[in-house]
């Protein structure tokens, strides 16, 4: 099946091509996204402007507020814009547009206007881009009512979820992990979309449940492999949609094992894991055999030096240690 392997980047590119071919109202814009600019610095949007024209696929000025504003307005007027904010840190420049407008216009208008936009953002420590290029802000977006926050863990998952976001009628923050761009996996089925709000059991197990998302799914799987040698079986839940998240799947999976670890690359304190952990404790207090453990980055900026950066991102050892804590 080697010929069926694709990178995440290819999967994203294919998903965008498919979506644009399917629906004329889809627009793509962001810095360098058109083909004269090489379809983005990583090539995620390569080929789109050649196929669909530079009216629908536009390279923008470096103006993140205007980019998201253009997305909001066109979405309200019935288009389905896919705006790219190159790196998640740069979304801070457009935070007003995202949070005070995109997220709220449906609510503030009493349902008269919808904002079906997708904001693609990339992030992820690992390439030495340091403090201003590697932040994880999903907890912010999840805390913001009205946004949907989505991320994939494999090329096929990424493609299916991205298309679901594009065709969803709400503003979606779609998070792409930069180091994962060049990782390979099974190619997505053509035409496939993955429903939002539904988690996936990435691996079955009966001793401990790890709830996670994005690149940490593979880390959790690696941790599970490690523990399988000791006959400890680990269930891995891939959230896919971080908000609104799939409480039923998570709670069922944890109820089954009575033990849980929540893990993400983002800073642990006040992170997404805190919400998941709290709800698990609230709902399954009597069934839990140990307190839920959280794995995440320390409360620091992402450091540059390889020596420090690699200690910043939680690895399988940290997940294994957290799992062991629940087994004590």
């Amino acid at each position, binding site marked *: 099946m080697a010929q069926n392997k694709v990178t995440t980047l290819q999967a994203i590119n294919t998903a965008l091509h498919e979506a644009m071919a399917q629906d004329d109202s889809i627009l793509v814009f962001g810095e360098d996204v058109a083909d004269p600019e090489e379809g983005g610095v990583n090539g995620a949007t390569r080929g789109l402007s050649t196929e669909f024209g530079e009216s629908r696929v536009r390279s923008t000025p470096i103006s993140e507020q205007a980019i998201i504003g253009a997305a909001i307005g066109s979405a309200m007027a019935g288009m389905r814009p896919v705006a790219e904010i190159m790196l998640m840190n740069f979304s801070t420049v457009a935070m007003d*547009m995202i949070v005070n*407008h995109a997220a709220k216009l449906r609510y503030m208008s009493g349902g008269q206007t919808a904002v079906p936009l997708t904001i693609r953002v990339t992030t992820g420590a690992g390439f030495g881009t340091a403090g201003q290029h590697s932040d994880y802000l999903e907890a912010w977006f999840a805390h913001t009512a009205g946004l949907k926050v989505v991320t994939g863990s494999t090329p096929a998952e990424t493609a299916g979820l991205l298309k679901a976001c594009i065709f969803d009628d709400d503003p979606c923050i779609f998070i792409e992990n930069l180091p994962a761009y060049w990782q390979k996996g099974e190619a997505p089925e053509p035409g496939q979309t993955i429903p939002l709000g539904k988690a996936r059991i990435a691996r079955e197990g009966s001793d401990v449940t790890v709830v996670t998302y994005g690149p940490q799914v593979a880390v959790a799987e690696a941790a599970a492999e490690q523990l399988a040698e000791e006959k400890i079986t680990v269930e891995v839940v891939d959230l896919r949609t971080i908000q609104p998240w799939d409480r039923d799947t998570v709670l069922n999976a944890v109820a089954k094992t009575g033990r849980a670890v929540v893990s993400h690359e983002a800073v642990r304190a006040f992170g997404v894991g805190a919400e998941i952990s709290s709800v698990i404790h609230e709902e399954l207090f009597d069934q839990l055999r140990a307190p839920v453990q959280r794995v995440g980055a320390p409360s620091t900026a992402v450091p540059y030096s390889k020596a420090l950066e690699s200690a910043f991102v939680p690895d399988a050892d940290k997940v294994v240690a957290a799992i062991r804590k629940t087994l004590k």
Partner: protein
Amino acid sequence: MNQASSTPDKAVLIDMYRKMTLAKQNDEQARKVIMSGKLPMIYYSPRGQEVIPAAVSVNLGAEDYICTIYRGIHDMLAKGVPLDSLWAELAGRATGTCKGKGGPMHITHPESGCMVTTGIVGSSMPIANGLALASQVRGEKRVTVAYFGDAASNIGAFHESLNMASVWKLPVVFVCQNNRYGEHTRFEKATAVERIADRGAAYNMPGIHVDGNDPLAMYAAAKEAVERARAGEGPTLIEAMTFRFYGHVFGDADGYMDKAEKEAAMAADPVPRYRQWLIDEGYASDDELTTMEDETGKRIRAAIDGALEAPWPDESELYTDVYVNDFSAA
């Protein structure tokens, strides 16, 4: 009155007055009902600025879009937002444009083209670009107007929006209502340039500096800009000079204002001035205008009365309209 070569025909001149008197009387009633305690709300009065949206709106159709700001009730009325649901929204009632969820700073009424009312300084512009972008991509002839204040011309969103609109030749008109203050701060103290219109040059965009209290001059400026946008020739920046009579927020102690400037501006109230001109030039009789005014006043009073009797939203409304399909938001 600057009798421009392009004086519009009578129907338009009367229509402008209709819009102005609607906005002026609506404001008078709003201040009254707030003072009476019957409808408490934080109110940003646009009294004194009526000419601008009246002159802009007679150049627009129902299909054209506007994005306006907290001080935009005159813009909304000129564009055709209906009084009943507008007032019900101001009163926070279930029958309001936004079911009471938006309130005065967030009136939305897509049917009349009022797409966004925003409370964040500068944010009408990037969203207006997006509406215009949709029209451009679809090849529609629709025009979008972004209203904003003078002080908003110092915020980043202004810059990004005008640059993008110009680069993409978007069908948008940026209308800056320069009332010489941003909250309590005088224009000169916060703005490095003398004329905001001159900032157009920084975007290779025509910048029109106009007396926004002069209906004919304002009409001509708006017409030129709307036609340019509609013809696909790109955006225009209009700086319309005006004045707000009732401070930043209605009820503020206006100690920060130049008293003489304020008195002079109020004495030169553009609405009665235009009324007199219409009569003097024979476009309307005093009686005709009085009738129009009375009828307008009645409609506004009826809308207010209706709003005050309208039902409050049910508490369940707190949790709806968060997403298209309601996940539990509780």
